[in-house]
Structures are given as C-alpha cells and as structure tokens.
C-alpha cells in the first residue's frame, strides 16, 4: 500500500508542524543565548539552588547535576518542563483528533467507503499523528547542535538525540492514549481529556517520587516521566529499561486502538 492516508495527514498538518517546530527552535535558541549570561553570574545562581532542600533540588535539577555545566543547564531548561510540555500538548492534540476527528466531522463515511481496511486507516492515522513529534525533536536537536557551541554549550549530541527521542516517545505514548480513547469512543474531547489528566498525574507522581522516599520505587517504575530521565538526562543518559518501555507503550496502545476501532459502529 502507498500510505495515502498518512501522506494526506502529513500534508494537512505541514503548516502546524512547521509552526510548532519553529516555536521549539526559537525557545531553544533563546535558552541557549541566555547561557553565557547565566554562566557568568554562576555563583549567585548556584547559591540560590544551595538554599533549596536537597530533595527538592534533586527533583527539579536531577540528582547531583551541576546547573552551570552545559549538561545541567540544557538538561534543566529543556528537559524538566519545556520540551516535554510542548510535545505532550502537541501529541495529545493531534492524537485525539487524527482518527476521531474524521468521525466527528462526518468525513469517516467518505473515507471508509473506499476499499481500505480499518486497521490500515488506524495505523496510518496513528503514525501521522505522532511522526511530527520526532520532527520537532529533530528541530530542537539541530538548534542545539548548530547554536550551542558558539555559546559555550557543547553537549554530547548522541546523548541529546536519545534524550529527545525519549521525550518524543513519552509524548507519543500519551498521544496514542488520546488517540485510542478518542478512536474507541468517537469523542476527541474525551480522548484528549483522559490523556492530559493521566499525563499530569504521572508528572506529579514523578515529582513526589523524588521528594518522598517511600514513593520513590513505585513512582520510578510507574511514571514515564522518570523513564525519560528528567533534568539530569544529559549527564546520566536514558536508562535502557525505561527506553524500552517508552518504545513499547505506543505500540501496545496502537494495537489496542486497532482492536477497539475494528469492532465499533462508526457514528453517522
């Protein structure tokens, strides 16, 4: 097959992908350009962090990360909130709309009157919805690779790539949850809502996991936000078990989405 649905999906969203990509590049560049200033006033900033409780600092900076080092600065600025949040919003929005949107707009009859299998439609829609996340990851990587060194921000680009892929996979996982719920119910709002709520819950669990020692083991196992490595990821890298889980989750969710969609009555 020629992936016609996927190509249509990407063609439909190329402007949105470009806009999100440019936004991510601009924000990343802004942080990079701030680095020399931050680094020069380093002692003062380190002093602020030193006043924070250790557990709290570890929760946001990553354990034992030097904020003023390139890995610490970039890791904190990009991976604690900015990139995961951008990608999650994007993944959940596109995920919830990709398949269920056709049903909500009433165009599903037109699509499925053609001789394509439902599982093909679901798969191409899913890939089309999540692929832009990896394009965005590439944009961020390029910004760091191209502008970083000139501002004294030299990081291991291989580790950076893996960290960005991990975050894209994290967003793809929640995006696929939105996709699955929306596809199985025909409601984009429900899909987006469930995925967003679970993402917030998992984020909070991860934060509490590093603050409350009795929660740590549970949170580290369950929360995908721990799997991606957090703010310290550029120093520590992504742990492989977590990476495996991040790869497996969207695939399993796609399988379930296909199964549920195959069985459904589609709304007129």
């Amino acid at each position, binding site marked *: 097959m020629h992936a*016609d649905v996927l190509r249509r999906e990407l063609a439909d969203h190329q402007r949105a992908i470009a806009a999100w990509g440019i936004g991510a590049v601009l924000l990343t560049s802004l942080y990079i350009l701030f680095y020399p200033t931050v680094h020069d006033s380093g002692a003062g900033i380190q002093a602020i962090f030193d006043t924070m409780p250790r557990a709290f600092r570890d929760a946001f900076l990553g354990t034992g990360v030097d904020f003023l080092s390139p890995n610490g600065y970039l890791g904190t600025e990009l991976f604690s909130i900015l990139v995961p949040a951008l990608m999650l919003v994007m993944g959940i929005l596109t995920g919830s709309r990709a398949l269920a949107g056709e049903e909500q707009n009433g165009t599903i*009859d037109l699509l499925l*009157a053609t001789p394509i299998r439902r599982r093909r439609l679901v798969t191409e829609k899913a890939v089309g919805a999540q692929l832009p996340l990896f394009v965005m990851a590439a944009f961020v990587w390029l910004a760091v690779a191209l502008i970083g060194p000139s501002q004294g921000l030299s990081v291991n680009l291989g580790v950076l790539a893996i960290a960005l892929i991990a975050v894209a996979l994290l967003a793809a996982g929640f995006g696929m949850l939105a996709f699955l719920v929306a596809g199985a119910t025909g409601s984009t709002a429900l899909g987006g809502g469930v995925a967003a709520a679970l993402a917030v819950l998992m984020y909070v669990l991860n934060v509490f996991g590093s603050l409350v020692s009795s929660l740590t083991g549970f949170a580290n196992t369950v929360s995908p936000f721990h799997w991606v490595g957090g703010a310290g990821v550029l120093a520590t890298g992504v742990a492989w078990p977590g990476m495996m889980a991040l790869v497996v989750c969207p695939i399993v969710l796609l399988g379930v989405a296909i199964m549920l969609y195959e069985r459904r009555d*589609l709304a*007129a």
Partner: protein
Amino acid sequence: MTAVSGFPPRAASPSFPMGEFNAIICAALTKDYGPKRALDHLDLEVRAGEIFGYLGSNGAGKTTTIRCLLDLIRPSDGTATVIGLDSRADSVAVRRRTGYLAGDLRLWPHLTGRQTLGYLATLRGGVSAQRVAELAERMECDLTQRCGAMSHGQRQKVGVIQAFMHDPEVLILDEPTATLDPLMQHTVHDLVREARDRGATIFVSSHDLPEVAHLCDRAGILRLGKLVTVLDVGELARQGRHVLSIQFLEPVDPRIFESVPGVSEISRANHTVTLTVSGDLDPVVKAAARYRVRDLHTAEVDLDEVFRDYYRSEPADAR
C-alpha cells in the same frame, strides 16, 4: 483498476448478466441502538441491474441499512451480502466494487474538490482522470474551489462524482438529489440510468415518492425498521396520489367528479374544487375541461399518507 489512465471500458464493467441474481440481499438484518430497534429482521432483495428505490420517512431505517451494507456499522443480527460478498467478512471487496453517496455528506473543508477526488481516487488505487473530468463537466462542478467554501449543492456534486467516478458495479445512494436543483437532479437521474444500462445495480434511498416513481424500476417501502412492501414502479405510481385544486371561471357542481375513476374527498370553496386523485390524472383533467378553467394546482400526497393507506389495509396485529 490500478492505472490512472487504464480504466476498463464500460462494456467490460458488469461481471454478471443482468437480472439473474440478487445484487443486494439482507437476511433478517437487525440493528439495535441500545433499547431502540432501528432495523427489525429486515429481508430485502435487490436484483442485479435494477434501480431499486428505498422509500421511507426519516428514521425509518434507510441510512442504518445502507451503513450496514458498507460495514460502517455492524448488524446486531442477520446478514447482508453485496454482489455475493458478505458485508462484514468481505467488506473491503464490497467497498471496492461499490460507489456510495452518504445522505449527510461531509467533505474536508480545507481540500478543494479536485484534491478530495484525488485523495479518494488514490485510496481506490486510481481512477480515470478522464471520467472524473467528464463527470465534473456534466455536473457543472467547479473542482478548484475549497469544499469549505462550497454551497450545499456544490458539495453534493462532488459527492456524486466520487460515487460514480470508478464506474462501480453497485451504487448506493442515500438521498442523492435532496440538495440539488431540478436541472442537476435530472443529470443525476441520467447518470443513474446510464449506470444501470451498463449493468450496474443502483440502490437509492429517498423519502420522495415522485422521484422514486420517476427513477426506479422497483421500490421497497420501509417503516419502523421493517420492509412493508416491495412494488413495481407502475404500482407505485398508482399508489401515488395528488391533491388537485381546480379554479373555474364559473360556478361548477363538484358532483361532476364523483363518477370519475380514482377521485375521492371532493370539496368546493367558491369556484375552486379540490379533489384527491389516485393514479391517473387524465380522466379528471378531461372532466374539468368541459368548463372554463382559470387555474390548476396539484400537490403530491406525501409518503406518510401512502403509508397510512398501507397500514389501514393490514390487520391490526401486523402493525
């Protein structure tokens, strides 16, 4: 049907002789939506090569039947086959050989007519660009416009083109002419007849009795998810009734119409006589012509009225 330019010639399209078997069969087809039964053990046979009208008022189950045939929804019980293929197990093959126009047609607002047809054509593995161009010309459809900016009628034209563009063996049309002007209705009727003449089977749902009487070979009447009857169109025309108002230039005794065949419910107001006429209008017109007629107005009795007649003639327990 892979090459865009290599569309098979029309004469080669029908892979079966006309009228020898049933192109669409529903057997005890039942569809429940929660406690509501939308289709109730529907048995229906549409012969290959005919134009079959599927009549029913809104909510009778017309669209439910059609969406079962296309596997968009799944029957709660019973089966449906299209050209011998099971609507569920062989759904892809059914859809490959079927053209479908949805009743509530929606298009992608950001795509132009041409992009829409191109997309659907690629999903079908390619259709003849020449055929699309020919259909667009006949439908007077501007394919360069974005669908979101089109009028209802324009969108419907795009819908008609996508249903016909691959010259399918079966056409399933849900209220195809509802939003078209009379001229375009005529064009669609021509397309439907041409499709039948090349051997295709056409299943047309409608709530418009005159349209079905005009277009179809046979018609089934659906009510509350059950097939009430299947009629030849000649019979259907006899079922059709007109309310005829004749304004005379002089006082006329309405009793002159009492002996005219098919006339019932005669009333008079001033110089205007109103009659309900079943079947042929000719004897009424001839009877009226003996006087000076100023104006003549006719209206179709609606489908529900015809249905009521059907139910009146049925025993109460069959309702």
